[in-house]
Each structure stands twice: as C-alpha cells, then as structure tokens.
C-alpha cells in the first residue's frame, strides 16, 4: 500500500492530467454533440498544434503565448476547411468517422515527415517551475493547463447557455428545420462550431507541447481516453467534459500508483466499452 504522500501526489497528477483530457475533450464533445459528426482527426489537429508551438518556439524563438495567439486563427480556418469538405460531400455521421480516420493518418504522416519520429521536447524556462503545497509538488505549467481547461469549459458553457448564438447552436442541433423556421442558419452554425472546435484542439496542443514530450504516435494514445471522457461527460456538455476528464485522470493515476503504470490505459478503454454497451443511448 503506497504512502499517503504518494497517493496525494497521484491525486494531484491525476487532476492535472485530467485537465488536459478535459481540454482535449472539449472540442470533440462540442463537434460530436452539436454537429453529429465524429471528428477522429481532432487528436491529430491537437498534436499538429503541439508541433507548431514547438517549431515556433525553437526555430523562431516565439514565446509560447505568441505562438498560441498565432495558432488560434489558423486552426479556426482549418476547422472551417474541414467542415467545407464535410458539407460539400454531404458526409454522414458514420462516414465522417472513416474520413477523419484517414485524415488522422495523413496528418500523422505529415508530422512524421517534417519532424521525424524522434522525440521532441520543448524546453522552456517555466518547465521546471512548480508550486509546493506541503509535501506535494504542483508543476506550474500543468496547473496552468488545468486552469485554462476550467476557464474554457466554463466560458463555453456560458456561451451555449446565455448567448443567442449559443441557444441557436443548441436548437439547431436538436431540430435544424424548426430552428431554421425561426431564422437560424444551420450552415453557418456548422462552420462556426467546426472552427471553434478546431481552435480548442490547437490550444490543447499548445499546452501538450509545453508539458509533454512529443512523438507522432502519441495521437493514438489519446484516442481511447478522450472518447471515453467525451462520452462519460455527455456530448455537448462542456463542464461535463472537464469533470469526466478529471475523473478519468485521477482513476488512471491512482491505478498507476497502486498497481503498475502499464495497466493505466485499461481504465479509460474499459470504461468506454462499458458505456458503449450498457448505455448507447447516451451517445
């Protein structure tokens, strides 16, 4: 039985990792829940964002904050482009899974082409900064990522809940014809959502670059976990995505502390399978 300190540290790491999961899940939850399109390429986009942040930082010495600022509009456009393809070919929910599957591999190959399969680490002065609470270490960057996740989740929630655009998005997702009868343009909604979702992927990527070591194959490591988070948190539920992310993060990290680390991936995938089988109507 590991010590209390170890468990405590595991809890902290789990929460922080869960924040990243939540950040990644946010965009996917929005697009899947409100657009009814499964964007498997979300992860590849995030990793692309990570590599771009790394590149801008190491080759052009742009501070990560400036890099992130450059990424946001770029990814918004990428999101628009993706949605343009979807609408032009009238892609259905199932076909979108296959198409984005292919897109993920293309992006992974592109990343590997430019940056090779070698591990990349974005060294920043903040990398080693951490706060100390009693015996526990809280790395500053990861804390910042977690806080950003929380802020974005809440902001998105508020946007959907209180603004006209947000209400129009929700209405259009449920009954596009009726929403149109009252003036909501379903097409524009779709593009907006796709752009926002891609932007979130890019921001998540920026943090991933700051926190983890990068390798192209990482895309697949995220897939199962984040899908589990999205489904557990409920589609189109921004706060749910964050909470589910934290939950999974903590479960994984406690499993890692109590049992061996290698079993951790099992947690998310098993939960995913259980939910898909026991409660498919949630999705």
């Amino acid at each position, binding site marked *: 039985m590991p010590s209390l300190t170890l468990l405590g540290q595991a809890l902290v790491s789990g929460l922080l990792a869960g924040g990243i999961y939540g950040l990644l899940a946010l965009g996917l939850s929005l697009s899947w829940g409100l657009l009814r399109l499964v964007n498997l390429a979300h992860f590849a986009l995030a990793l692309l964002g990570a590599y771009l942040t790394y590149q801008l930082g190491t080759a052009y010495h742009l501070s990560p904050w400036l890099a992130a600022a450059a990424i946001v509009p770029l990814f918004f456009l990428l999101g628009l482009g993706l949605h343009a393809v979807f609408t032009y070919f009238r892609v259905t929910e199932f076909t979108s899974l296959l198409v984005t*599957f292919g897109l993920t591999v293309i992006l992974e190959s592109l990343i590997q082409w430019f940056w090779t399969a070698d591990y990349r680490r974005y060294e920043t002065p903040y990398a080693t900064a951490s706060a100390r609470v009693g015996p526990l270490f809280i790395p500053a960057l990861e804390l910042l990522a977690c806080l950003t996740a929380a802020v974005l989740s809440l902001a998105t929630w508020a946007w959907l809940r209180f603004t006209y655009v947000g209400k129009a998005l929700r209405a259009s997702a449920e009954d596009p014809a009726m929403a149109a009868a009252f003036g909501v343009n379903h097409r524009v909604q779709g593009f907006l959502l796709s752009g926002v979702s891609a932007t979130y992927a890019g921001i998540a990527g920026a943090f991933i670059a700051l926190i983890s070591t990068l390798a192209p194959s990482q895309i697949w490591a995220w897939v199962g976990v984040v899908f589990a988070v999205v489904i557990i948190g409920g589609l189109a539920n921004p706060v749910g995505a964050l909470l589910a992310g934290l939950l999974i993060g903590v479960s994984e990290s406690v499993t890692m502390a109590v049992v061996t680390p290698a079993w951790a991936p099992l947690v998310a*995938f098993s939960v995913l399978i259980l939910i898909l089988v026991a409660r498919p109507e949630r999705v």
Partner: protein
Amino acid sequence: MSPAGRRVAAALAAAGIGLGALAAAGLPAFYESFLYLIFSWIALATSWAIFSGYAGYFSFGHGAFFGAGMYTTATLTTALDVPFLPTLLAAGGLAALLGAGVGAVVFRVKRLRGELFALLTLAVTFVLATIVLNTRIDGGPGVYLSAVPMPGLLASPTGTLYLLGLGLALATVGAAYAVAHSRLGLGLFAIHDDEDVAEVEGVPTFRYKLAAFALSAGIAGVAGGIHAMYVSYVTVGETFSITVPLYVVLMSVLGGARHWLGPAVGATLIGASLFAFTGGQQAILGRAVVALALILVILLLPEGVVPAALRRWRAWRPAAREAPASATPALVSDRQPGREAAALECHDVWKAFGGIQALRGVSLQVAPGEIVGLVGPNGSGKTTLINVASGHYAADRGRIALGAVTLAGRPAHAIAGLGVSRTYQIPRPFAHFTALENVALAATFGAARCSPPQARAEARRWLEFTGLGRRATALPHELNLHERKFLELARALAGRPRVILLDEVLSGLNPAEVAGAIRLIRQIHAGGVAILFVEHLMRAVLELAHRVVVLNEGEVIAEGRPHEAMRAPRVVEVYLGRTHVA
C-alpha cells in the same frame, strides 16, 4: 454446386496450382516474400469484409483478432514447444472465440449504431494490446520465434510461408464466395440494408451476425499465426498498431466491400502500390497516400471498384431472359400440410413508450378469412399495434397469439416464420436488392422456407401477381411509389403468411392506383389470407372491411360492421367534434 460456383472453384484451384507451381519451380525469395504479403492482405481484407462488408457493421478491431492469432502461435511455439502448423488451428479457434464473445455481448444491444460499433471494436483492440503487454504473454520485450522449426513444405522458409499464405488467401476468397451465395450471406446483405426489416422478414439477425463475426475473426487469427512466423519477432507495438485495421478497411472499401472478390482486388492494388514505397521516409509517405486513397474512395466511389466495373460490363451485355412465371399463383392449394388457417388474437395488450401510453388494453381478433380495418385519429396507436403484433416491439402486457401459438415474447423473425407478415406505411425495400431479390428473400426466410431456386420462382410468381413482373430486375430507387408499395405487398405475400398486417398501404396513391390496390387486396383475401389493415381513407375501409375496429388514444372505442361502427356516437364525436352529435 451451381454452375457459376463450379466455375469459381475451378478458377481458384487453377490459381492455386499455377501460383504454387511458380514457387516450387524456384521464385527468388524476395518475390516469394512480397507475394506472401499480398496473400496475407487478401486473406485479412476478405475476412473483414465477410462480416463488416456484407452486413455493414464496420469493425475497426480486425487487428485484435489478427494479434490474438499472432500471439497464440508465438506463445504456443515458444513457451509450449507446439509444432507450428497445429498452432494455426489454435490461433484461428481462439480468435473466433474472441469474436464470438465480443459479438455475443455487443449484438444484444439493440441497434448499436455504426460509429459506436467501430469505436467499440477499436477499444477492444487497445484493451487486448494492454493485457498482452502486461502479462506473461509478452510482458514487454516481445517474443522471438527464430528458433521455432519451420515445416518444410517447400525448400526455403519463405517458400513455405508463401504456400501457407496462398492457401489461406484462396480458402478465404472461396469462403467469401460461398457465404455470399448462401442463406447466411443473403441474410447479412439484408441486415446491411435494413436490419429491422430483415428481422421481420424472418432473418435470424443475431445468430447470423455472430456466425459471420466469428468466422471473420477466426480467419484473421490464422493469418496472424502465419504472420508470426514471417516476422519471427513479435511485439505488441507492431502487432496491434493501426496498420491492420486501417488497411483492411481501405482495401475492402476500394475493391468493393459487398463483393466477394472486391477486397482481394483492393488488397492486390494497394499491396502492389505500397511496394513502390519501401523503407524509412517513403513508408510514411506510403501510409499517407493510402489514407488519402481511403478518403477519396469513401467520398467519390463508395461502392468500390469491382461493383462499378461489373455494372459497366453488364450495361454492355444484353440482359438474360428468364422464363415468365406459370399462371395464377395458388395461395390455397399450395398450402403446406399442418399450416391451417388460424386466427390472430390480441388480448388486453398494453404498450408504453417512455411516458406515453400508446396502447391501453387493446383486444381484437382477426379470424381466418376476415378483412379487418383498423382506424382511428392520429396517435391512436394503430401502427404501434401492428409493430407489436409483428414483433418489432415487445408488448408490456397482454396476450398475442396466432391460433394456439403465443407470439408475444418471440423474436420478430420467429413470428414471421409462424405466418405473420407486414408492410410498412413508407415502403422499406432493401435498397441494394432488385425487386426480385427483395421478394425472394421473404420467400427464403419466411414461413415458406424455400430453397434458392424455389425462392426465385416464388418471387416471380408474386411479382406477376402484383403486376410488377416486368420490373423484376429493377432496383427500388428506380421504382415509383406505387410500384414500391406493391413490392412491399409482394414481399409480404412471399412469406406465405396466414395473416397480413397492412400499414396505410393506400397513402400517397392517386385514385386510379387506389382502385387497383383495393382490387389486389381483394384477390389476396380470396387466396385465403386474413388481413388486418390500417387505413385513413374511409371509403376504402368501407369497401373492403368485413369488420372495423376504431382506436382512440390507445383504446378500442367501437367495433363492428363498417357502416355501424363509423356511426357510433363516440366515433362521430372523436372524428368530428361534439356539435355533430345531436
């Protein structure tokens, strides 16, 4: 075996002998190796398509079964010193068991959507990979098979692998052909187009999906076992990577996932073009090109290369003339012994959906030889009653029986087998089946249980009966609404039902078509089939029905001869409003 089947078997045998001789004569090891890979992909892609392509449940988990097979062989040969060839049986068996296990759980979930099934199977792959990585099966360092003795089928190791791969590829393609032309295949294709309707027409969907999934998994397992010897160093990363799931989907979709030869063509094309990209950076590019090809094919050529080519070819040749069917269809005289007419009885049936009580203790009877009209305002529960009687939904309470046999609680395909057929208000034909094939399916799986040639003859007969004889080779989207409605009728009749449930068969027809439909319904009745029909068109109800049952808000409010029932005060009130009742 049919003549076409014999031709295919001969072609496969010839290919086997030819290619086998090629190796025996002495092919350079490099080519043996390259061709082995193509054979392996042919086996993998074709086995994937036997379930996912035919039935339409796209699985992203083929890698799990492949990996299970690889590790079975790796473990048995290294840890237990089992000779290589017998391990292939174990590999296939274990993989098939795994597939059956996953299927048994997952297929119980009603109408699991396509993308969820894909995600689920992907998750299973990752779970299996984690388990293998963390237990003694692999544990991390991988498994070395270099010390395992290779059976000497041919002089060189690559030659032996070449032969094994060739054998598996030919066997798999043969199996794909056999399944495609069997009842199992017919059922799978129907499931692909409309699983609910397939079940209602008599296809045992759960059993068939399970069988096909297990077969598909088993073949992948054998392919994995062989591949373990090929790579001779098995690691979790390489085995359970995204390559296998991605490529099998692509190869099948490119070649044509619904055709038995499609995946093989796709595998050959992709395999050959990947040959152009070997090693290092080029391999990465190769993967990207493959993925791009997948996207383009899905968006632009969704049915695949082989079916598109076949269609072009058929447009060239004149259509084969089939002999017209013999005279009038005999509904009564062909009646199988022991299948006497029986009454359909619903007693005190209750059904609720969520908070809405659709049926409240509905009781009605359709005696042999009766035509009963079921009428009522919107939302009164008419279609729900038909859905419950045909087994589409299970009743919450109440008795539903055909003669002495209880129907309630049986799966829909069993109810169809007992002699209950139905049509849908909005026709739901199988989109990829011709009119003839649609009706033949019902003849094959319905109460009549015909063999394939008998089914086609029956189908012709019913198409003639409904006036669609000349449209036998048309696809549903080429028929107009009137023709599609009559196709529904023909399909319902081909099941040799004792009772037919018609759901608003006349809606959308113009007056002339309505008159024709009424005539047809009379003829069906004359053949000895009892009919329960839901209709809004009152004059048709008055013309046809012996008895009328009026539903309102889930309850029977009137029953009796049409003119009497429609004048009952309660009925007038419900339809016209209070002021009409003096």
